């Protein structure tokens, strides 16, 4: 696959899946997204260090089948009383297969009232999204979801 010129993920999926990936000569092509579970683990370790990450407390809300990978609504919510003694310090979101493992880091604090952040993210391919929350006692909690991303039926020239 890599030996082909202009090899793009769109072409690979179009042939492999028989999907109707009609394509004009792409003027802007997407670099092949590398599967990066190792990069994901490294990015997580960057934030978490050697501490244990426990599943729980974090709710990651992303549509399981996205309409378009360019703009995927995402809401992360962490169960926490958000008092001055017990609050969420930060939330870190990672992905598995984009060219880069980080999505965003969000820094909260006791003044937030509710540990919930919404944004819109890009997903290059069907993959896992992971959210890790750091609490005020420096414990780490996580949640992950598997998202299915289909490509648009017809690619098009840029304007």
């Amino acid at each position, binding site marked *: 696959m890599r030996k082909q010129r202009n090899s793009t993920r769109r072409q690979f999926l179009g*042939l492999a899946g028989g999907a109707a990936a009609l394509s*004009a000569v792409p003027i802007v092509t997407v670099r092949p997204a590398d599967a990066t579970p190792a990069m994901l683990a490294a990015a997580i370790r960057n934030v978490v260090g050697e501490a244990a990450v426990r599943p729980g407390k974090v709710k990651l809300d992303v549509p399981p089948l996205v309409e378009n990978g*360019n703009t995927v609504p995402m809401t992360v919510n962490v169960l926490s009383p958000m008092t001055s003694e017990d609050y969420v310090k930060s939330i870190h979101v990672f992905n598995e297969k984009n060219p880069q493992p980080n999505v965003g880091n969000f820094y909260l604090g006791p003044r937030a009232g509710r540990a919930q952040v919404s944004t819109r993210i890009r997903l290059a391919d069907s993959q896992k999204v992971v959210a890790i929350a750091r609490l005020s006692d420096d414990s780490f909690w996580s949640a992950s979801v598997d998202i299915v991303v*289909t490509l648009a039926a017809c690619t098009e020239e840029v304007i």
Partner: protein
Amino acid sequence: MRFARVIAVAALLIGAGIAVSSLSANEIPQGERRSGYDFMTPDTQAIQNDDTANPGMLWVLDGEALWKSKTGAAGRSCADCHEDARAGMKGVAARYPAFDKTLGRPVNLEQRINLCRVQHQQTTALAYESRDLLALTALVAQQSRGDAIEAGADPQLEPFVAKGRELFMRRQGQLNLGCANCHDDNWDKRLAGSAITQGHPTGYPLYRLEWQSLGSLQRRMRACMTGVRAQAYDYGAPELVELELYLMSRAQGMPMDSPAVRP
């Protein structure tokens, strides 16, 4: 590589029965007409519903600034003649494309804005799909939000609506598909992962997630034509305006929802 892909697609479409369907398409009965909004997932609909989350509103904001800025040899702003856009432009976009007496043919909203700029503001026309033209179009179109589409009602437009209909039905491109083959005959199905809509332009100019930008109906139609491997008409071509006119008249009575969000 490309050839193999075309064959794969053709095989898929033959399987879907599109390629062998007859030339005459079944027009959608009035009662079954559905806006593109209806075909979206609730998450995407939510992006459109909230004016502070809808990225199309960023262009409307820009349009508001442009509306008030004086320009050209005449040193006039849109507001100088049309006053506040909210009042002056209500219902306008729902009537476009409209017949222009001087040109003797329909013009769309973008062309109307440019005609105003050249004739009344004595300044240059804005390029198609430029940020400024999209901003002004978005501002005007937003003022028709909720209004029923009236375009095409003018009897002078009849021959142009007919031409547009003919273009809509005509098979074109390497894949030999007409607009009607998908948007009249197969709107209740999917093309790969995407829902096939009925093709009603109720929300233009709209923020398309695939573009990550606001864009016009002409941009969308050109993309479809490229998609069936046909040579797309140039921006502003009479064929595109006639198609726009036909599509809007086909959607008569449906409420506008510009600036919409679509996948």
